[in-house]
């Protein structure tokens, strides 16, 4: 069973490697969104320092959202999704594997370039490690909850906007605990409880997403 999940993850990673462009485009989008803020707000270092954590988090959220509709779309179009449903592999496991693959191909690259953006946004030095840590702990929730949204909208023609309307409100807890933890770390307060709530939310969404998303895919493809 585990082997099958690993095979699906490996397949998705290979597909994304060969297409290549998708991951780089999401990274480009991420950088562009963050860069827009100094233009809009002004280049004062003090203000940038103050908003940097929030801006980076919001940009990560939006980039993640942008890549979600592809999660099941290509599989739906070329018929692989039907094969997944027919195959003896539980659909829940397929969904779990696809969410993990989505995290590996989307969120992980974003986290890798975050330090550079941090420098550009005048992120306080004490905040670099906490920010990376919270992103590592929090972004899985984005992929899992996003997986639910992607499965709900997979068969729809105008799914993209509906997807963002459905998913963005559910991302609020990640945003709250993610930025609270970093702020606590900057201010020298204990950040442990925020981190625990954040990882709890990630684990919880990992637990419910496969069931909900698999049910939605079955309902959609019936």
């Amino acid at each position, binding site marked *: 069973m585990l082997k099958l999940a690993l095979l699906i993850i490996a397949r998705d990673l290979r597909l994304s490697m060969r297409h290549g462009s998708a991951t780089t485009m999401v990274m480009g989008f991420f950088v562009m969104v963050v860069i827009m803020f100094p233009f809009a707000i002004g280049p004062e270092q003090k203000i940038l320092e103050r908003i940097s954590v929030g801006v980076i988090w919001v940009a990560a959220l939006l980039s993640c959202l942008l890549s979600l509709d592809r999660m099941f779309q290509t599989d739906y179009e070329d018929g692989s999704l039907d094969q997944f449903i027919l195959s003896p592999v539980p659909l829940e496991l397929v969904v779990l594997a696809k969410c993990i693959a989505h995290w590996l191909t989307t969120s992980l690259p974003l986290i890798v370039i975050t330090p550079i953006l941090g420098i550009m946004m005048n992120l306080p030095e004490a905040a670099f490690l906490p920010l990376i840590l919270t992103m590592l702990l929090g972004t899985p929730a984005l992929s899992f909850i996003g997986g639910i949204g992607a499965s709900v909208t997979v068969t729809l023609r105008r799914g993209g906007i509906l997807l963002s309307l459905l998913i963005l409100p*559910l991302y609020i807890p990640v945003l709250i605990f993610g930025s609270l933890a970093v702020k606590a770390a900057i201010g020298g307060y204990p950040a442990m409880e925020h981190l625990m709530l954040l990882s709890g939310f990630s684990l919880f969404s990992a637990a419910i997403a496969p069931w909900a998303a698999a049910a939605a895919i079955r309902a959609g493809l019936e």
Partner: protein
Amino acid sequence: MHKFANPARFMRLSKIFLPWFMGLTILLFASGLYYAFFLAPEDYQMGNTYRIIYIHVPAAYMAQFGYGIIAVASAVGFIWKHPLADQAARATAPLGAGFTALALLTGSLWGKPMWGTYWIWDARLTSMLVLFFIYLGYMAVWQTIEDRVKAARIASIVALVGIINVVIIKFSVDWWNTLHQPATLMRLDGPTIGGDMLTALLLMIGAFNMFFITALIWRIQSLILRRRVRAIRMQLGGGQG
């Protein structure tokens, strides 16, 4: 359970009950508004402005009550494939969204004289706002998916994922910021307001509740009728209804 799944039976029963519910709504509103505007005393701190709570608090309750109904109806519809439950969930959404909007509106009108601004990022206002967006998303699902059966299945999944998240979002927003005064009605040591104010508030909550139920039955009836019209049109071969 399945006894009530039959839309025809629902139509028959609701026709008997609806006038009573309507009458009760009018009665409760009349007495509630009379209490709220004439009998309830002025607040010694907030003057007459506080009277907005007679609209605000019931609307806020109804906003949450509405989502509760959607969640229960969705669960029933999802598990037992109960067509009436699906219709009930669908019919509740615009009502709940309307009450959420009303609660937000009255909240910000109340905020202007009290806090000096129409909007602050207070925990309860914020979670109400998020609830409003969740309602919108849920309604958008119904609107986007053309196939009824499919729409019902998917909407119920969205609603059930939503209800879990509504709780988490509420908790996390409370964590994030809190400025709003603590609950006055639902407390372990009893309500902190008394006398005519409490009577007026309870009457208004009752009135809103009855109105909600009346409007809900009305909407379910019209959804069922609309489906019937479509079915008849299809039979006549008149194309899409």
